[in-house]
């Protein structure tokens, strides 16, 4: 097993999803005529572009949507792809970045709230595997929860990756010394925790007991009425 390359806050890395697979989170929210179609999934950015229209057509056909949806779906995916690719080649300053990831989502009847830490430097990380373990350990049976959790993680990682590109740009333009770089990191990327504070419990890897339930997942099952209430809230 290869040891991770030693990283320091100064070494920039080319933009990419900090996960083992370069899957990009895609959100769809399309309205045509009287119908609204919402979906969220991950897309492999290395797939050929022809796949987009195939997928869009397939989706429209499977869900028996009017034809206009196919083009809209394809367009939306392509737009998001282009946006992702526009970051390509740019540098993101990852440095030492362990960020908190928060889950706060509803999938059908399941309500999930959770918080944990994710290392942006760990390019072997796998949200899908994490989500699989998550569902297995908590005995979640709804097969749609897993992908939704993985998607939520990816979305946040994507956001943070984009932010760190902006940070890298700032620090390059700043033309300050090393000190300047540090201050711009901690200022503009508030998501990154101060590493020493991370191990606040006497620099121990074990968390203080009182903080355990902050970082513990909370899974609730909703009744039918509650599901309806949530739906109305979300669509308003």
């Amino acid at each position: 097993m290869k040891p991770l390359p030693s990283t320091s806050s100064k070494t920039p890395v080319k933009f990419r999803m900090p996960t083992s697979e370069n899957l990009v989170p895609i959100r769809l929210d399309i309205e045509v005529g009287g119908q609204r179609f919402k979906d969220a999934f991950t897309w492999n950015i290395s797939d050929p572009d022809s796949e987009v229209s195939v997928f869009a057509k397939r989706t429209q056909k499977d869900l028996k949507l009017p034809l206009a949806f196919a083009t809209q779906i394809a367009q939306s995916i392509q737009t998001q792809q282009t946006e992702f690719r526009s970051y390509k080649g740019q540098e993101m300053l990852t440095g030492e970045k362990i960020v908190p990831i928060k889950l706060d989502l509803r999938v059908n009847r399941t309500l999930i709230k959770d918080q944990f830490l994710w290392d942006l430097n760990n390019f072997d990380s796998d949200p899908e595997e994490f989500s699989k373990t998550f569902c297995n350990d908590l005995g979640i049976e709804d097969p749609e929860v897993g992908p939704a959790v993985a998607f939520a993680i990816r979305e946040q990682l994507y956001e943070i990756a984009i932010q760190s590109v902006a940070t890298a740009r700032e620090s390059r333009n700043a033309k300050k010394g090393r000190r300047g770089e540090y201050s711009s990191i901690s200022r503009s990327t508030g998501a990154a925790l101060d590493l020493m504070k991370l191990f606040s419990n006497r620099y121990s890897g074990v968390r203080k007991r009182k903080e355990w339930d902050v970082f513990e997942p909370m899974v609730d099952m909703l009744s039918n009425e509650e599901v309806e209430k949530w739906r109305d809230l979300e669509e308003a």
Partner: protein
Amino acid sequence: METTTRQDPKAESTRPDEPEFDLYTIPSYSSWFRWNDIHETERAAMREFFDGSSVTRSPKIYKEYRDFMINRYREDPSTRLTFTEVRKSLVGDVSLLNKVFQFLNQWGLINFGADSARIESENEYKDEVRVEDGPPNGIRVVADPNSSKPFPASHAGAPLGADVRRSKLSPLASYSDVFGELGKRKGILCGSCGGNCESGRYQHDKDSYVLCVKCFKDGKYGNKSVDDFKLHGSSVSDGKQRDAWTEAETLLLLESVSRHGDDWDIVAQTVKSKTKLECISKLIELPFGEFISSYNLGKDPASGLSGNGDGGKDVFPSLPEQQDMIKSENVMSQQANGNEQRGDDADKVPPLKKQCVSYSSGSGISIMRQIARISSMVGDDITATAAKAAFAALCDEASCPSDSFNNEEDFANELWPAMDQSVSERWLI
């Protein structure tokens, strides 16, 4: 697998049955483990902690993670410790924590004696085939609340908003949910004797009371008048056909799937006596069922293969697909090799050889798959005769070598005749 019984390392005594010591079992291949040290095995497996690459990863922190997890597990050795339980208590990247967890798990330092029943049940669950009707619940198509257009209520297939909800099977539908209704529709039961009213029933005009033919003849009218009963025709079509698939239904299914692909609404309409789900399940069960529907998706629309009619001669357009044609010829000629006994049935076979048919994939497909495709393209009678011709050819082939060696003409007939019938039946179904 050997096991060693490790004592609680705080005590040095070697007598395992003294009640003051806790005993924990770990596999013998993990006997390198020491509480007060980090072994080379651990260093090699998790270099990230030992290469100084980050201030968040150090041998000290690794040891803390490891010790915490093992101690946590040992609080209740019979229960399987899950990763989710420990990760809330440890500070660090969850992927890294999971790596440590999996390491300990694999080496049996945790969860070695734990209840593994849940893992087995999870694996079983994966093997169940779940037939779902419609898109998953997470994908919703709803009426845009801002639009003034009325939302079409009869939108087949698309899940609607709160108001119109078709009765869909939940993703957790089990076998009995899907097929339970089959049992219920087994047939109409007689109100008097409780038996199946297969050969006809007498329905009371004013209510739902039903009598089978036998009870009616026996005069068991209950407290109803004989005049009120009306004979309903033979319900042979009601009872049994709902359970099993007849040949006719199966052929209808195959035809309509090869024509309509996986548009199950139309398929179910064609096979009138079976629901969509039954059609899907049946297709999966068929030996080449999946190939038929997947083949249909890849079909060249220009080839216009809609002919399931007779002869098959008029149906196939010539398309220049040299490789595939040669391949199909090889297949057919193998089947009809050295066959002098074809008879007039096999006259229908040569036209296939002459026509070029475009296959959507290359020539690397297995023979079985090709046969499946060919048989889905032609009518059932052609498939039957082709199968018979093939078997005649095979019998002939088998007999040739033995003839030349032993000059025993009966050898082949003894070997094959029993197979002939049963296997050609399988081709039909």
